[in-house]
């Protein structure tokens, strides 16, 4: 398949170019995708050797190939010519600077490059300065924690970088990497609009820089912004769109995109993990677990996204698997927010909430904006009955990302615990607005309405109906709907929902008091409606149970027989109240 070959070749060049510019996370990503492309057994040759001969031969190959690129599935892709390197032989200073950079001595690297004029050198110098500023900022954030939480640590290099980059741009001597850096700087300074434009420009001229795409993605906060971006139709755009859809909670669209991409990149761990993420949002835990098991088999030292796996294990209460995972990440890299979250989850599952909070705190120390850590910590505080602390933690999560529906839900829960159902409703409303397909939120909301203090049953019914329509796993909604309708004296509706509930319980082979209740109601209801046959069926089923209901069923049956055999009914009054 030609397209695979194109992708592979493009990525190969890109990995080299990206790591030449020390854009390591982008080159890591590109390399992962490169390996993720399914090998074509026919054409497969040990291709690595080709690349070591220098870049000129690659260029030639590309010029031949790009014309024949075949569109996949009706999408015509714009092929972007691979960028030509301006200086094939890197200068000595560049080599030195890169070595410094690789040793994380950013300022030194920048210093070495101070008088260099090549595009690559200029970029590396700026980038090194930027990273030096970032590093210092992080350190300062910890050093300076003033009273009242004053945290004004800023990247001190931003001003000079902006000046330099804007000058470069005016000269026209800026390359796509410079544009990316410029966008980054502007984003940090809060100039989002211009940042977006620059990033678009960057990815249009050099689409293989995943870091640029992900910065762009974080700037696309609404679907309208996303659609208004003038992006070229490169295959990298699919990755971008899939991620952006995911952020915008368009899970099904996102899933479709990823599955389509999997056609080409069938071995990509990244795509697998992303699919797992989407499935997690769709609450398909089984699938998530399967995916992660496979991921871990292929990539046992992976820490990224593993906190989500731990969430799944937590939800499924797999103690040993979770402890195994915690141990594994702990041995791999214990100072990662993900690792801390996993350990926190483990302690939480164990019921040791104080310890769990400690680990979430550590995760937050490592990354103050770690969304899931705030939320999970909120959950822990809820468990510990420390509602004000929980409220605080959730609120911080929400302030970091207002789309964090779990934290909104948590806030609602906290207030509900404090006996303020009306106040809690505000939060549930927020949450459900973000995640309208989650039956749990609808049910929580309905319960608030149902509370004695509010007693707004009509609203509760509406919520339960929503919950029942959006796959309610625990099947609470149907039962509640039936009960509420019965309370409100709407017997027909009650019967309808009892019947539905009954069917569902039969399908899932569940049993219990709900079953008895449903049967009893249906039996009496059918009898009152003179549908004796149906009533008999229900009564006989009730006979299988012990307890007072059995007796009731018997007397019902007796009454019906008498009624059917023509005697004037005197049995209706038989059953106990």
């Amino acid at each position, binding site marked *: 398949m030609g397209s695979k070959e194109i992708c592979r070749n493009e990525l190969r060049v890109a990995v080299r170019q990206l790591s030449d510019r020390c854009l390591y996370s982008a080159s890591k990503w590109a390399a992962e995708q490169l390996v993720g492309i399914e090998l074509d057994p026919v054409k497969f040759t040990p291709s690595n050797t080709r690349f070591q001969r220098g870049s000129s031969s690659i260029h030639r190959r590309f010029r031949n190939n790009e014309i024949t690129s075949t569109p996949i599935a009706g999408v015509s892709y714009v092929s972007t010519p691979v960028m030509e390197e301006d200086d094939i032989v890197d200068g000595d200073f560049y080599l030195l600077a890169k070595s410094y950079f690789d040793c994380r001595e950013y300022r030194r690297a920048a210093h070495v490059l101070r008088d260099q004029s090549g595009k690559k050198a200029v970029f590396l110098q700026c980038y090194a300065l930027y990273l030096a500023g970032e590093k210092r900022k992080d350190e*300062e954030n910890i050093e300076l924690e003033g*009273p009242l939480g004053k945290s004004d640590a800023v990247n001190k290099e931003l001003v000079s970088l902006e000046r330099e980059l804007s000058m470069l741009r005016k000269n026209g001597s800026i390359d796509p990497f410079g544009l990316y850096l410029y966008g980054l700087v502007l984003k940090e300074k809060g100039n989002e609009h211009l940042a977006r434009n620059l990033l678009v420009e960057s990815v249009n001229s050099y689409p293989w820089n995943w870091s640029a795409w992900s910065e762009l993605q974080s700037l696309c906060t609404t679907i309208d912004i996303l659609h208004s971006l003038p992006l070229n139709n490169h295959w990298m755009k699919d990755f971008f769109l899939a991620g952006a859809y995911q952020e915008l909670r368009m899970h099904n669209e996102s899933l479709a995109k990823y599955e389509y991409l999997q056609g080409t990149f069938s071995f990509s761990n990244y795509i697998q993990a992303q699919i797992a993420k989407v499935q997690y949002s769709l609450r398909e835990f089984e699938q998530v677990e399967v995916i992660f098991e496979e991921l871990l088999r292929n990539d046992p030292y992976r820490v990224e996204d593993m906190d989500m796996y731990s969430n799944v294990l937590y939800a499924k209460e797999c103690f040993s698997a979770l402890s195994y995972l915690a141990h594994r990440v702990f041995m791999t890299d214990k100072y990662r927010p993900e690792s801390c979250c996993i350990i926190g989850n483990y302690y939480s599952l164990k019921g040791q909430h104080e310890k769990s909070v400690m680990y979430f*705190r550590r995760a937050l120390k490592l990354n103050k904006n770690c969304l899931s850590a705030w939320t999970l910590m909120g959950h822990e*505080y809820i468990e510990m009955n420390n509602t004000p602390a929980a409220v605080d933690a959730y609120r911080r999560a929400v302030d970091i990302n207002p789309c964090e529906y779990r934290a909104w839900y948590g806030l609602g829960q906290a207030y509900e615990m404090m006996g303020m*159902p009306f106040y809690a409703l*505000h939060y549930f409303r927020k949450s459900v607005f973000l995640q309208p397909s989650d039956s749990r939120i609808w049910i929580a909301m309905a319960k608030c309405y149902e509370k004695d203090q*509010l*007693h707004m049953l009509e609203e509760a019914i509406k919520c339960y109906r929503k919950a029942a329509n959006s796959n309610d796993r625990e099947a609470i909604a149907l039962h509640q709907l039936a009960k509420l309708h019965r309370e409100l004296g709407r017997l027909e509706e009650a019967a309808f929902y009892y019947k539905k509930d009954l069917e569902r319980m039969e399908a899932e082979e569940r049993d219990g008091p709900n079953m008895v209740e449903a049967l009893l109601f249906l039996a009496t209801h059918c009898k009152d409606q003179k549908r004796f046959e149906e009533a008999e069926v229900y009564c006989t089923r009730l006979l299988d149970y012990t307890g007072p209901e059995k007796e009731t069923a018997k007397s019902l049956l007796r009454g019906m027989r008498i009624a059917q055999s023509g005697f004037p009914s005197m049995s209706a009054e038989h059953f106990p109240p």
Partner: protein
Amino acid sequence: MAGILKVPGAFDVTPHKVSLCILLQVYASPNQLFVPFPFSSFAQHNRLGLFLLALTKSCDDILEPKLHELINQSREIGSSSIDWLADHLISRLSSLSSPDDLFNLFTEMRGVLAGQDAGIVEDDQIILDPNSNLGIFLRRCILAFNLLSFEGVCHLLTNIASYCKEVLSSRAPHEAHLDGSGVNLMEASEYENMDLENLVFEKVTEEIEAKKKAGERIPFHLHVPTPIFGLVEDTDIELSAKPTFKQSTKGKEAISYAMTLDGSSGAVDHGFFLRSNWQIQGYLLEQTDAIEKHGSSFPLNALEFMLGQLQKLAPELHRVHFLRYLNSLYHDDYASALENLHKYFDYSAGIEGFDGIPPSSGFNNSGRYEIALLCSGMLHFHFGHPKQAVEALTEAVRVSQQHSNDTCLAYTLAAICNLLSEIGISNASGLLGSSYSPVANMGTSLSIHQQLFVLLKESLKRAESLKLKRLVASNHLAMAKFHLMHVQRPVLSFGPKASMKLITSPINVCKELRLSSNLISDFDIESSMMITDGSLSTTWLKNLHRQRGSSVIFEETEPGNRSNASSFFSQPNSIPGSVSQLVGASYLLRATAWEMYGSAPLARMNALVYATCFADCASSVDAAVAYGKLIQYLAAYKGYKAAFAALKTVEEKFISVSKSQIMVLKLQLLHERALHRGHSKLAQQICDELAVLSSPVTGVDMDLKAEASFRHARTLLAAKQFSEAAAVAHALFCMCYKFNLRVQDASTLLLLAEIHKKSGNAVLGIPYALASLSFCESFNLDLLKASATLTLAELWLSLGSIHAKRALTLIHSALPMILGHGGLELRARAHIAEAKCHLSDASFSVPETSGVVLDSLRQACDELQILEYHELAAEAFYLMAITFDKMGQLEEREQAASSFQKHIMALEKVTDEEDPLLK
């Protein structure tokens, strides 16, 4: 971080503190002689000491003064040494180039302090006592420095470097703006406001000059630098013990102005800097008051900007969110108000910020979320969601009961009362009855009235037992309002047999009003206790605040110089703004009460008292109401010309709030005038406009709706469409009855009587008039009663001359009330009716009693001409002409007849002259 509350104001070393230490070293260098080197006199030396003392007192700052600000402030000390001091300071600071220099500096500092073992202290040696204020400050600095980690020392060093750099850059201000940090932006806005500031200063200087001329004492510390104010507040009390207290407070205000004046004239840049944590809280409180007072006219963006800055500087100062909430609340931004409200309470758990509640008692694990509920109830109320408001408030009641927060409970009950009385009894009945509420536990059998009454009682009792003075007062007010507005049956009457007599009780109203004004005397006693640190800093900040651009805008809207001056000088009196607001409200309510009971002069007096004495602390809406009342009075007693002139000035004054109150008033006046002049088309148009102003929701804005439809009926009546008018009046009566607007019922009945009278159907009119009369009697509506009596008399009169006697007695019975309290129109009508009675009386002989008739007719004519009420004026002149005719005075007759003709012509020639007041 969650669960960890940082100790606010942890003491850490900052460049500002380092420079203070350096100055301290100059002040108390151990090996100097009696008067240390840079100082020429002992006094100068002491002044530096005072200055340092003031600076150390305000060291728990969030935002510290910059170096150049410090230097500018220090110029106050004296001229000769200051340059040396500044140079010394700058050179010392800029010589700190390595961490080791800092270490050495602080080691030196230790030498300034007298050691415990120093033993003998020579007389002429200056040694800092380690236990003095300055000594303690120095020790704290040294300790804090010693506690610093190496990173901390490095930070201090870089901060000092940039601190010094700003002195240089302040000479070239554009460079300082390049890095765009928040503080600089603030300064930028400061530059823009410079001119305005100077204006204010000039004014103040004039005032000070005037005071000087008047021979008043200017206290000695005129030249104390600004930051000493915290100190002055303390020390001044001893100093001013000699003169009367009032004077000294006045003086204090004057100085604070003089200070800022000096500061800005001496140096180019007198930076706006907020000081301690307390002062920021004080500032926020101040802003809160301002928002509440000015309502929607408060500049949204200016404050928003300010809050943004504050939040950047102090992300954990959550009260900022609360201010945001208030700000957006008053600018009708529902979404943002709701969002910020929730944010504030999520972060602070309601613990931070609410005064009057001792924080210690509230610091249990549960937080104070009931206050959140109370606030959200008020929010929904404000935005007109009564149902949600009731839900939130009932939840607040429950939660505060749960947490036994009686204070909040009392406030919540008061809020519910307010809600109930405001949203109209009508739709509340469905509301409270259906929802499960603690209010309902008294049984739904009670009418909503009675529920409200019981609630008010309950709330009052609670507030009294908790000694919440303000709440008690406002509850009394609410009670008075209740008594005023609601016609009661005795609460304890149940069952159908109980007497259905409806009454109002003016005595209760009066009692409640008195009780609520007692508040002010209570506060005099309490005042010393009420002033906390926070409000002191507020006072201090008043001056800064005044200079800022935003407040200068208000200056203009305040009525003339009078209030300017009074707000300068009356400010430090001990009665908090909220209290005087309450007392003012009682006057306003008094005015309304008198208006209803029918004493116009008393109503006017009370409104006048309000407008003059409480305008400063009143919210602009209340002030508009008071002015509205005054204008209405003018219209009724002095004619439209005066009223419109007054309206014009008031409109200018309330340019931003004019939307509702003033607009309604204007339309009312215009309508009235149009009716009198006989422009029925215009009247109808205005009437429609009035109707549009009310909210389309049923049960809301009932007063306005009733008014509009009442005026509609009157317009139809004036256009002689009697059956339509009667239909509208009927509908109005039904509506008023349904919504329990009893007072309106009475006037509607009177209107119906009037319609029947005009349509020539007097027999039908009489029962209506009688019904209205009995309503008025039981509701104590004296003036309305008089006018009903008058209508009744007119009805009788129109039944034929045999009833003239009866009519005359009726008129005579009503005349004292009408002449004492009635407006021009009513008086004129009474006069005409009286004259008519006399004329139609068979036993009446013209030549003998013509004096009586002519007298009253002349008066009527005068009054009606002021009102431009052509129809009645024509009638009066007609009668006059007839009388003259009977008397045989032909010349006068002709004169009256020509006047009659003039009015008739005016009535018929409906000129649609362009009214300048109508857009």
